[in-house]
C-alpha cells in the first residue's frame, strides 16, 4: 500500500534528493543558506501538495 503523501514526507523527500541547493544567478552559482534551504524545501513541498490536490479534482 502506498504511503500517504504529506507535507512532511515531501519536505523530507526534497531534502533527501537535494542535500544542498545551488541557485544560478546571472551565471554565478550561489549555495543557499540554511534558512533559504529550509524555505525552498518547504515551499516546494507546499507546491506539490497544491498540485496533487489540483490534479485529483
Amino acid at each position, binding site marked *: 500500500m502506498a504511503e500517504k503523501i504529506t507535507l512532511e514526507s515531501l519536505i523530507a523527500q*526534497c531534502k533527501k*534528493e*537535494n542535500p544542498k*541547493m*545551488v*541557485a*544560478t*544567478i*546571472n*551565471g554565478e552559482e550561489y549555495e*543557499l543558506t540554511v534558512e533559504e534551504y529550509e*524555505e*525552498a*524545501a518547504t*515551499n*516546494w513541498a*507546499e*507546491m506539490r501538495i*497544491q*498540485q496533487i490536490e*489540483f*490534479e485529483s479534482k
Partner: protein
Amino acid sequence: MANPTTNFGWVMPVAADLVTNLPAQFNTFGQGVDTSMAQLKGGSTAQYLAKTSATDMAFTWTTLGAWTNYTPAATSGWTIGNGTLSNTKYAQIGKIVFVVVDFTLGTTSSVTGNIRVGLPVNSVASGTPILSSFCKMADASASQTFIGYVVQNAGNNTSVDLYVQRASGTYVDQVAQSAAIPMTWTTSDSFTLAFCYQVA
C-alpha cells in the same frame, strides 16, 4: 572682462604688469583653468556628463542606461530554490527604470501563488501604473508559452505581480497568475519579464 573672471575666478595679467612677470601670471591663469576643468577629463566613447552634486563643476562621465545585474527578491508566490536567474538586470535613465527578469525553475524551485517580484529601485508610489510590460510564461513539458504582463500592487512600491491574459468570452481579459495558472508549474518551466516604471 572682469579680472579675476566672473564665473571661475581665474586671475589674468593686467595692463600694468611687467612683461617679465607674464610667464608666472600665465602659469597661475593656466593652472586655474586646468583645476577648474579637471572633472571634465576622462570618459569614453558614447558616455555623457552627469552632475554628481549641486556643487559647481561636480561631474562624472556615465553611460546612459548602463545595465546592472540584480537579484530580484522572491517576495511571495515563488521560491528560487536551485533555479536559474539569467539575464536579470535593470537600467535607470532619469526617473524611468527598465527591468528584465528571466527565471527557470530548478528541481527545488516552487510557485505557490501569485508571483511577486521585487523591484531593483522603489517605484514612485504604491500602485503606480507600470509604463509598459511584457511577461512570458513557458510550460516546458507542453512546449507552450503564455502571455501576460506585470502590475504593481496597490499596497506597495517595491514589487510587481504577474498577470496572464485569459481567452474567455468575446474579449481577452486578465487573471492573476497562480500555482495552477496558466499551468501547473514544475522543473524547467520559466517566466520572463520585461517592463519599465517610474521612480521618485
